[in-house]
């Protein structure tokens, strides 16, 4: 599939633009971590996690949208839908497998206890 229009972003070649954005954001990632190292105690871990997550999202979107042509091509919309299809199943997996932990049955919270059997 060839590209239609959208060859440039802000006057730069879109690939080159995206490439430099990725490079800069990776640098931000590394620097954020380096800061926790060199300025121990001044930057909280939560800040770092926040930076890492937001930078990761930006980078992921950049790669998917520009490099994988999920933005700008005429087949982009339907392929984006394809790429997002597993999201529901991933959410189920992370919720059910990643975020539960085994427990004794009596820890079932009160809101799911009807208690009408005698």
């Amino acid at each position, binding site marked *: 599939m060839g590209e239609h229009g959208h060859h440039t972003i802000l006057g730069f070649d879109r690939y080159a633009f995206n490439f430099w954005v990725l490079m800069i954001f990776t640098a931000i990632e590394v620097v954020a971590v380096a800061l926790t190292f060199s300025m121990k105690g001044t930057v909280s871990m939560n800040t770092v996690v926040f930076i890492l997550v937001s930078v990761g999202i930006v980078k992921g979107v950049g790669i998917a949208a520009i490099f994988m042509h999920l933005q700008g091509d005429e087949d982009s919309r339907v392929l984006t839908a394809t790429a997002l299809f597993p999201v529901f199943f991933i959410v189920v997996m992370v919720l059910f497998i990643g975020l539960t932990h*085994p427990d*004794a*049955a*009596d820890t*079932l919270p009160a809101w*799911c*206890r*009807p*208690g*009408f*059997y005698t």
Partner: protein
Amino acid sequence: MEAGGEIFWYLFDIFNLWAVIVLVIVLVWMFHHSLRYRSKDGSDNNVDNFKPGVFPKENDNLTMELTWTIIPFILIVYLTYIAWGPIDEMWTADPDAHEISVVGNQWYWEFDCDPMRGTADAPESSVEMENRSAMMFYNENGILICELTTIEVEGQIKPLLRVKAEESYNFAMTSNDVTHAPFFLDWGLKEDTQPGMETRLYYTPSMDEVGSSLLMCTEYCGKDHGYMTAVVEVFE
């Protein structure tokens, strides 16, 4: 005696009733339609005029389809509600329950009538501390509520756990190696014993359940899984 506890049979009867109703509907429907609408002479009457490569004419009826979506849904909601009720009964820890420890091993069961002896949480007992043991436990009134002895099952010596009817028990279970699951046959209860964590079962045997029944392992655990038995006796 009968396998399965009171709650099981209560639910089982309700579910069975509805199962039979649904089954009868389906079977009557099926036999009626398949005989009533059969090709009488065995010849091929192309009712809907099928032709290869031609999507046939529609055959649906929204009212009927909605009927057998909504009515089963209501039935399901009812059955879920019925099944939900006893959860509280089964999954609530009785604070006064007597704790018995159950440990699964390849391939034998270990019980302890008084796992908390010598700890701050130990329940009151009229018997002096030094008389407390894994084998026997008396409550504060001096009544025996848990005893552990042995019994012969098919030529093998197995543990015999004796518990008192109408006393509440809290089985604190774990495993030393792999997953096991004690199956209290008469009470219709089981829960896995997992290594590295504690699972729990709560039960108050009734007077109807007086007698001995076999306890089996119901989570596959290797070679002698089938011989991993014990006997649980409820006494008055």
